[in-house]
């Protein structure tokens, strides 16, 4: 592990990586690991339909309005404009690919050109 030569591979690290792979498999199939028959209560079933959009929002929003763990306090941030354009494009054209391309077309000049 604490090797000074960056290209040395050690067995301990490989075992930890195998453990992480098992964690991936277990967390992603957590509620269907067991074969036993049970049913979700009705309210939970209904509640789950709100989970996908919540999960995306929870990942996406901090990536747009925060930097280094703080809410950004400036308007000079390329991400806000790119995201606003992206949302507008989506509701106008209903095309995710176009959202990415035009969003980046706003983001890259502001980010690389103006340093926002």
């Amino acid at each position: 592990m604490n090797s000074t030569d960056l290209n040395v591979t050690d067995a301990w690290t490989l075992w930890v990586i195998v453990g992480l792979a098992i964690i991936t498999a277990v967390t992603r199939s957590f509620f269907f690991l067991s074969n036993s028959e049970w049913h979700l209560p009705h309210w939970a079933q209904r509640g789950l339909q709100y989970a996908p959009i919540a999960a995306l929002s929870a990942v996406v929003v901090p990536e747009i309005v925060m930097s280094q763990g703080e809410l950004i306090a400036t308007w000079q941030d390329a991400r806000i404009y790119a995201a606003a354009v992206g949302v507008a494009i989506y509701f106008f054209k209903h095309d995710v690919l176009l959202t990415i391309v035009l969003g980046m077309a706003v983001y890259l000049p502001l980010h690389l050109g103006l340093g926002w």
Partner: protein
Amino acid sequence: MFWQRKLYLHPDFNVGVRDLAPQAFGQIAWALMTGVALVKSGMSVFESVFMTLVVYAGSSQLAATPLIMAGAPAWVVLAAGFCVNLRFVVFSLHMRGYLMHLPRLPRMVAGYFTTDPVYVLFIRRFDHPAHTDEHRRSQEAYLAGLSVANWTSWISCSLLGIALANAIPTAWGLGFAGILCLLGIQCSLASSRLRVLSAIVAGMVAVLAYALPLKLHIVVAILMAVFACLMAEQLKVLKERPA
């Protein structure tokens, strides 16, 4: 399920591949950056490649690598990986109804490949678990299409990132393309007022709870958003009930 030829031949397999295409495009830069980050954090090229191939979870890889390099005990690394992956536990509850007709091993294989975009796109297309064998087959084929397309694009770009680790500057911010892609998919899910409410609550809670360790803000945000929507549903029912 994924090793079954009939799934690849099913028309819904191709629909899945096609629906995932924008995501594959959006995550090119993201996967590249993950590959770069693994090598730059000090892991050997072999370790980085091995991790990319078997762990297949970008956020848990990024959370675990610095711990591994700092020589943290194995259980700390694994516990961190588990916490970062907690949102998948919520997803698995949702996917359960769609997969329980399969034996355990194929279920787990399907689960292993159910990353964020695969889950979201699958649920977007299929509101309810299938009731007939024919529909089950088409759901399985669609899931297989999404999974194969996502795995291929993520793995190939991550490996490319590892190979080019010393040539790609992180300052370009190319990874933002992946966020724009998720944002687009998020908009495509906003089909009712309550779902919009869910997105707003989750976004606000995620920002407020961002300081929590191990990306726990994500799972807290999901739980709060679902809770808020269930409460709002109840209020609506109460209001509509004749006095």
